[in-house]
């Protein structure tokens, strides 16, 4: 129990410091550094999305990862065309379920 509390405290304090320190020193952050950090942030979110799809697990169907890749790609195409997040979610989840059913029938 002590291990859990100490680990959570360390990550908690570290995470607060990550967020707080650059903002407290906001006046000293040069524009190019801030711009590059924006690209780094965007890159991390892109990587989180890619990893989330590649690590997708669904024991109920074969080819769970390819099905997830196609569903997410299809849904994000709608995001590129300016559709809202709820439409993207509905299409992504709907196409995943539909493709899962088709794959389940074929294999």
């Amino acid at each position, binding site marked *: *129990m002590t*291990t*859990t*509390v*100490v*680990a*959570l*405290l*360390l*990550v*908690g*304090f*570290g*995470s*607060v410091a*990550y*967020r*707080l320190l*650059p*903002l*407290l020193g*906001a006046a000293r*952050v040069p*524009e190019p*550094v*801030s*711009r*590059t*950090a*924006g*690209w*780094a*942030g*965007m*890159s*991390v*979110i*892109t*990587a*989180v*999305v*890619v*990893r*989330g*799809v*590649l690590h*997708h697990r669904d024991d109920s169907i074969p080819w769970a990862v390819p099905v*997830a890749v196609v569903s*997410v790609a299809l*849904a*994000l195409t709608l*995001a*590129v065309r300016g559709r*809202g*997040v709820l439409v*993207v*979610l509905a299409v*992504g*989840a709907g196409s*995943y379920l539909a493709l899962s059913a088709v794959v389940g029938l074929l294999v």
Partner: protein
Amino acid sequence: MTQVDVVTRRKGGELAAGAHAMAPMLVAFAPFGLLVGAAVAASESPAAAWLSTWTIYGGAAHLAVLDVLQRDTGVLGAALVGLLINARMVAYSVSLAPYWRESSVGSRVAAAAVLTDATWALAHNRAEATARARRRFYFGAGVTLWFGWPTLVTLGVVVGRWVQDVPVAALLPSLTLGTLVVPQLRTRPGLAAGAAAATVAVCTAGMDGGVALALSAAAGATTAALVHGRKA
């Protein structure tokens, strides 16, 4: 309408616009929040794990720390995993800095408290707004998530286990975050950053999350800076 009315309405407008933009994200993050709640309930110290929702304030890091602790790998291993995954907050905070230079220390502390992926990305996508309007929008979105996310985690403590049996629910955070990234791909440096980060993410899929994310960030930022430099 007096000038004061106009200013008050605009203030409320930006705050409300931020809250309005975050509301669908909360729906999308619901399954993930419930999963984190299930992990909190299964933790050795549920109270400490639940209170960490506000300090760690990142579902992936929170889930990873609790998962590593379940495997009994020790304090340092668990802390390192969580800190590596949440290291992206430094990039978010640094990129926000120019918009908070004129703000009070209290405002900056509050901004840091509500900073996470969705809040940052929504504010970052609002490039055309003034710094003041962006800050209000940011607070509208941030405060909504700051109350909404812990509520989802708390619900997950009670009913989170059933979400683990619905595989499609695990895809929703990826879809939501993907929607946030798309507007930033419309510039050439943004597109270059996204392509480089996605390529590195595919190549490092088998690696530990924190290290892989750091490599993707480095690749994306470097490629975007090169493209930006060539354009200039």
